[in-house]
């Protein structure tokens, strides 16, 4: 479904990604692991068209999207729930959710989807008229996720969705991610909750200093000595 082939990405003249390749198949839940600053967010931004790719290609559903502008990538069904939430702080919760469903199909089902999102995160329903900027950190994270779901994505990209959430919610989020994936949405996930995410995923890639150094199923990687040492501190 998504095929990243040998991409290089730089910020001005600092190269951050080197020959990164990986794939996400239809219906899969794939996790990208890596230390701080290893280039995970950069990879995701390159996929969603926010950063130019210097070398290599990115394909989605057989279409080359390497050079596509960000909004077109979203239109194809790749929805990115960004790191650091990136809400619209002066818009209400409801408006933020509405912003998630701009494309025709999503818009047609706006009401239903929103109901589902509200079931998933009841606090959003309570606060639907509050400005997003005044929500607590965790509430904001829920809204960011909810907003992503509103687009009925084909491929949902999530950059550390559990960041700053209370343990009970982290569990819930992981469950929801699994649910969403179970309902047929392909998911590409970046997470620091290494154990939980590896337990959850079908396959995972490990990124170090901008290069893919390991790949395998979640179980395999959990057993991998390097992963154990570098990420689990065991």
């Amino acid at each position: 479904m998504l095929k990243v082939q040998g991409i290089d990405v730089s910020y001005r003249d600092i190269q951050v990604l080197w020959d990164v390749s990986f794939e996400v198949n239809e219906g899969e839940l794939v996790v990208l692991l890596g230390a701080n600053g290893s280039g995970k967010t950069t990879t995701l931004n390159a996929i969603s068209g926010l950063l130019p790719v210097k070398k290599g290609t990115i394909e989605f559903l057989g279409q080359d999207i390497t050079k596509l502008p960000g909004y077109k990538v979203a239109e194809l069904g790749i929805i990115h729930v960004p790191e650091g939430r990136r809400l619209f702080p002066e818009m209400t919760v409801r408006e933020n959710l509405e912003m998630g469903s701009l494309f025709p199909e999503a818009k047609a089902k706006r009401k239903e989807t929103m109901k589902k999102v509200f079931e998933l995160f009841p606090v959003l329903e309570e606060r639907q008229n509050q400005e997003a900027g005044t929500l607590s950190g965790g509430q904001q994270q829920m809204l960011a996720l909810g907003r992503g779901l509103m687009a009925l994505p084909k491929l949902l990209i999530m950059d550390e969705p559990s960041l700053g959430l209370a343990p009970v919610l982290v569990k819930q989020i992981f469950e929801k991610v699994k649910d969403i994936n179970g309902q047929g949405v392909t998911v590409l996930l970046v997470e620091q909750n290494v154990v939980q995410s590896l337990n959850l995923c079908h396959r995972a890639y490990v990124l170090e200093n901008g290069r893919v150094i390991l790949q395998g199923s979640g179980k395999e990687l959990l057993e991998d000595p390097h992963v154990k040492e570098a990420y689990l501190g065991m």
Partner: protein
Amino acid sequence: MSYFEVKDITKKFGGLTAVSSLSFTVEKGEIFGIIGPNGSGKTTVFNLISRFFPLTAGEIYFKGKRIDQLPAHKICEIGIGRTFQVVKPLRRMTVLENVMAGAFLRTNSMGRARHRAEEIIDFCGLTRYKEREAKSLPIPLRKRLEIARALATGPELLLLDETCAGLNPKESEEAIELIRKIRDTGITIIIIEHIMKVMMGISDRILAINFGRQIALGKPQEVANHPEVIKAYLGDAYA
């Protein structure tokens, strides 16, 4: 009288009571943890202590003096430093300059501020990034920068708001190390964190709140086993 004391503080935002007659004390040298579900009012407590918001009601004492009437910048001057959950780096300044801006609180000399800042940068393991502009740092490093900057102001009491969020288990270990090291220099710490592993590992005592009210207070293990905490916060018992 305790080293630091919060007495019956309340904060209302319009109709919403974010913090509701909350009281607690912190002893010198302690690492005091605060946990609670998202939106339970933890950050608001910090904002009240550091006077980013005025109190609706209540009193706050530090070293026996009432401090809830002081202006925000004075809070730092008397020795209470803080970090922000949503990081606020001085974007176009380098890491060194960021930390120097903090160090100037205790000195007027460029040389001394620089020296102090360099020490702290080393202490926090940011030496590699010293000359980088803060805006180019990834979020976890920005969080560490927040700590360094706050340390540079020479606090006696440090408020850390989710400085470990976004770290993987290995990195969390390092962060815990850093926090311990800070405590070992004699600084008292109040910490907010959602990663229970971190909280359990370093806190001397933990306060759990929900809806701005205390639901439990005590040794980490006691709090983690408190039924209400489990229900509202942990989901199931922390093992």
